[in-house]
């Protein structure tokens, strides 16, 4: 097993499958009366969050606690970061406190790679800028596999703000490793430059893609990262790239609708789609805990 999880590209097909299989076994824990395993007793995991997050932070915390690891949560607000402490100095502090794993979210792409060079413990990338979010890709793959039975040969449409989406990047890498076919759909301004060198197809027309998709993954429009006008108006974006009930009917019967959250209801996804039986949005959150337990176990469960 690898020492850090920085990018979905760190995982080859057997390792990624091992993570998903381990997560499937660990998922049984959620149904038990004692939701706790002694596996990581005495290990310390630090949640180092420089950006806001609900789902991911809580999910990692729950995963670590279910494996009996000690969790220290750090958020940039209310810490010495507001006094101007650098990432390196914070890292050295964590290092001297003996963190076995550091889960980092940072607005700068590549921050986890820097961190991995400074500390001895394992580093897990929980989202760095517009770069990657590998555990989200793993939980998405897990959700697809548990709903549709397989990953190889699936057609996955990733729709919307691909440009700012670390979820999309990690999903493209992982799904490609596991044999699924990815189509990126969005307005030309929100597809990254150089996307033609990625192992994907691209389209500007959502309606044309839907009838052959097994999975539609809607991305949040990340207005906080937009310093420019990428589309004329919200209304126009929603008309062309939003998933509403009429569009959902174009999907094959077995197809599922995913969203990494948080959603802008009425923007990229209509409320009735988000709450429909095809939607896996709530499932994704539950699966996130199992997948992160699997990652922490495989990174920390072995040699100390």
């Amino acid at each position, binding site marked *: *097993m690898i020492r850090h999880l920085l990018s979905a590209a760190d995982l080859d097909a057997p390792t990624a499958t*091992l993570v998903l*299989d*381990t997560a499937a*076994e*660990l998922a*049984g824990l959620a149904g*038990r*009366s*004692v939701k*706790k*395993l*002694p*596996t990581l007793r005495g290990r310390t995991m630090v949640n180092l969050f420089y950006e806001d997050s609900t789902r991911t932070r809580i999910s990692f915390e729950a995963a670590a606690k279910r*494996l009996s690891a000690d969790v220290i949560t750090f958020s940039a607000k209310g810490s010495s970061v507001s006094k101007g402490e650098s990432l390196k100095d914070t890292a050295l502090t964590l290092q001297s406190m003996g963190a076995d794993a550091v889960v980092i979210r940072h607005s700068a792409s590549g921050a986890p790679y820097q961190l991995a060079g400074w500390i001895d413990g394992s580093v897990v990338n929980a989202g760095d800028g517009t770069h990657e979010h590998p555990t989200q890709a793993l939980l998405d793959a897990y959700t697809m596999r548990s709903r549709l039975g397989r990953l190889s040969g699936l057609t996955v449409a990733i729709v919307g703000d691909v440009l700012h989406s670390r979820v999309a990047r990690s999903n493209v890498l992982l799904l490609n490793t596991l044999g699924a076919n990815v189509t990126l759909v969005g307005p030309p301004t929100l597809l990254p430059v150089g996307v033609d060198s990625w192992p994907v197809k691209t389209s500007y027309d959502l309606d044309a893609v839907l009838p052959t998709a097994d999975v539609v993954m809607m991305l949040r429009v990340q207005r906080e990262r937009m310093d420019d006008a990428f589309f004329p108006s919200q209304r126009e974006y929603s008309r062309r790239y939003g998933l509403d009930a009429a569009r959902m009917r174009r999907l094959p019967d077995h197809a599922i609708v995913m969203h990494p959250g948080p959603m802008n209801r009425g923007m990229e996804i209509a409320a009735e789609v988000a709450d429909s039986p095809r939607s896996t949005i709530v499932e994704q959150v539950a699966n996130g805990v199992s997948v992160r337990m699997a990652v922490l*176990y*495989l*990174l*920390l*469960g*072995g*040699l*100390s």
Partner: protein
Amino acid sequence: MAYPPAVEAGGKQAAGKAVITGPDLTRIVDRMAHQILEKTDGARDCVLLGIPTRGVPLAHRLAGRIHAFEGVRVPAGALDITLYRDDLRLRGARAVGHTDLPPGGIDGLRVILVDDVLFSGRTVRAALDALKDLGRPRAVQLAVLVDRGHRELPIRADYVGKNIPTALSEQVRVRLTETDGTDEVRLEATA
């Protein structure tokens, strides 16, 4: 599961000496099934939980023989102990096996743990810890195909297929038809 792991599938066939062969192994399992029936009042309120890998097919065989002898259906399942091992830090992270409990759980039942080889006793200790998190059985018993000695913990088996005195330098390799294509127990010198 034996400690160290008993068998890699497809290992060398010729090494060491055979201590139990096919028909003997069947007779031993038959005898253990009878002993379980005798000691548990006809296998009432029992559940057989095999410890992966080779404890699981053994548990199913015992359940099958108990049914053949007295017509009692004893549920057989699997109890994976990987996440409860005390040597995780000493070796690499291992793949997690499958735990398969009867639908009603194990509360109030007599759980019979089934494993292929009893050695240090650490696997059984881990299994007891795992059981504690899964429910509250009325009693826990242990059935092993081979007891090779060298206990490191105060643990003993209730049902023993065969006591095989060994040196620490030897390995007991159990092969079962379900997992390895043949029934056999061999004693091998560690390389």
